[in-house]
């Protein structure tokens, strides 16, 4: 079983038609009990640095929290953006995520990776936001959304269809799909983040893919390589 690091840059991800992804594999190890169930191998450098910074933050260093923020903010921002699909709300939600992280840092027991813990907060924050927001985006707003620097101009229409289909997914399916497909988390990491069994992750992922393929499967042929 291979795991992918949450620090992997999606642009570096090389997807082959056989479904093998050439990724920088990283083990998902944490505590002694979890280490036995996870892959063996060294922790990513940034994950190690995060652990050190969390320790110093718990001793009262606010400057280290700033460094922790700089180290993790791009990934959290990307996740929040994909979970919400609303770039106007991203700043507020990222800020709320780090506020909750700062307040709850004392409750971080170190039984999982800091990234997993932070992702869990981000997912909770975005799901709360989705419950409170308007029930559906208007057509005009959906057309006006942007999809990031990775998007080709010719694929805007397809990305728009994808964004709408993603928006229609139930929150738990959407979070599972985004965490695994775009953030590169393994089944186990997704299960830890969402605090559910691995089997649930697998079934949610399968359902999310089925729904998305049902809606946009025919149009995927138009995607430019």
């Amino acid at each position, binding site marked *: 079983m291979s795991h992918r690091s949450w620090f992997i840059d999606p642009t570096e991800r090389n997807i082959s038609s056989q479904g093998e992804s050439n990724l920088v594999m990283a083990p998902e190890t944490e505590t002694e009990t979890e280490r036995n169930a996870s892959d063996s191998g060294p922790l990513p450098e940034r994950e190690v640095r995060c652990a050190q910074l969390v320790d110093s933050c718990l001793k009262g260093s606010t400057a280290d929290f700033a460094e922790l923020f700089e180290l993790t903010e791009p990934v959290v921002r990307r996740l929040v953006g994909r979970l919400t699909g609303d770039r106007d709300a991203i700043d507020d939600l990222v800020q709320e995520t780090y506020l909750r992280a700062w307040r709850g840092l004392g409750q971080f027991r170190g039984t999982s990776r800091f990234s997993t813990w932070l992702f869990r907060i981000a997912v909770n924050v975005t799901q709360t936001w989705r419950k409170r927001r308007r029930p559906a985006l208007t057509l005009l707003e959906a057309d006006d959304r*942007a999809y990031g620097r*990775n998007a080709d101009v010719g*694929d805007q229409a397809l990305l728009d269809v994808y964004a709408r289909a993603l928006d229609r997914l139930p929150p738990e399916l959407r979070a599972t799909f*985004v965490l695994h497909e775009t953030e590169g988390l393994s089944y186990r990491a997704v299960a830890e983040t969402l605090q559910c069994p691995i089997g649930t992750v*697998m079934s949610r992922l399968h359902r999310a893919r089925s729904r998305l393929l049902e809606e946009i499967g025919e149009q995927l042929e138009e995607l430019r390589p």
Partner: protein
Amino acid sequence: MTDDRRLEIERGFDGELDEPEPASPIDDPEARRHLDRLARLRELALRHDPGSLVPRRSFELPRRSPRRILSWLAVAATAAVVTLAFLPEFRSGKPPRVVLTEPTTKPSARPLEPTVGRPPLEVELYGWANTPSKPSGQVAKLVLSPGPSSKKRSAANEILALELANASRRDRSGVQRFAVAKGSKPAPGPGPKPGPPGSRAKSSLPDV
């Protein structure tokens, strides 16, 4: 293809299979197609990245038409020109120029010229004003005569008519004058008494 088979293909696609798949999915066209769609879906999901952009409101200008922008630029340029034109005057310390809006009593050196398109009454008045003797009591009667046309008399015509009436009166009875404005008095010195009430021409204009 069964749901279990798809799930198995997806686990292989995700690299989450405990054991390598016994049969290669490439041998199965349907499985190969499903894998291809999974790969395309992942590619699309990776391209969807709203978080890589700054919020829309902070960097995008509101939509304005070029015409509106040009009009704003024209207004701004006019304001700048006016400001620059008056700036030296303000800096020099001179008192600002005053534009007189009240009519002066000083007679104009230039004779009045009738303009094309004026009403006939005004043309007659201008003609009278340009004559040196100004003995036109007929014109004064014409101007002051009641009727619908008197409602349309302008302030200038009214004053001019009073002057005409005064001139006509002078022609008949020497220095007798009609009051033009409130508070005006007959010329001092000996002279004939003013006429009976009703013989004075009064202005129908409001007092100033």
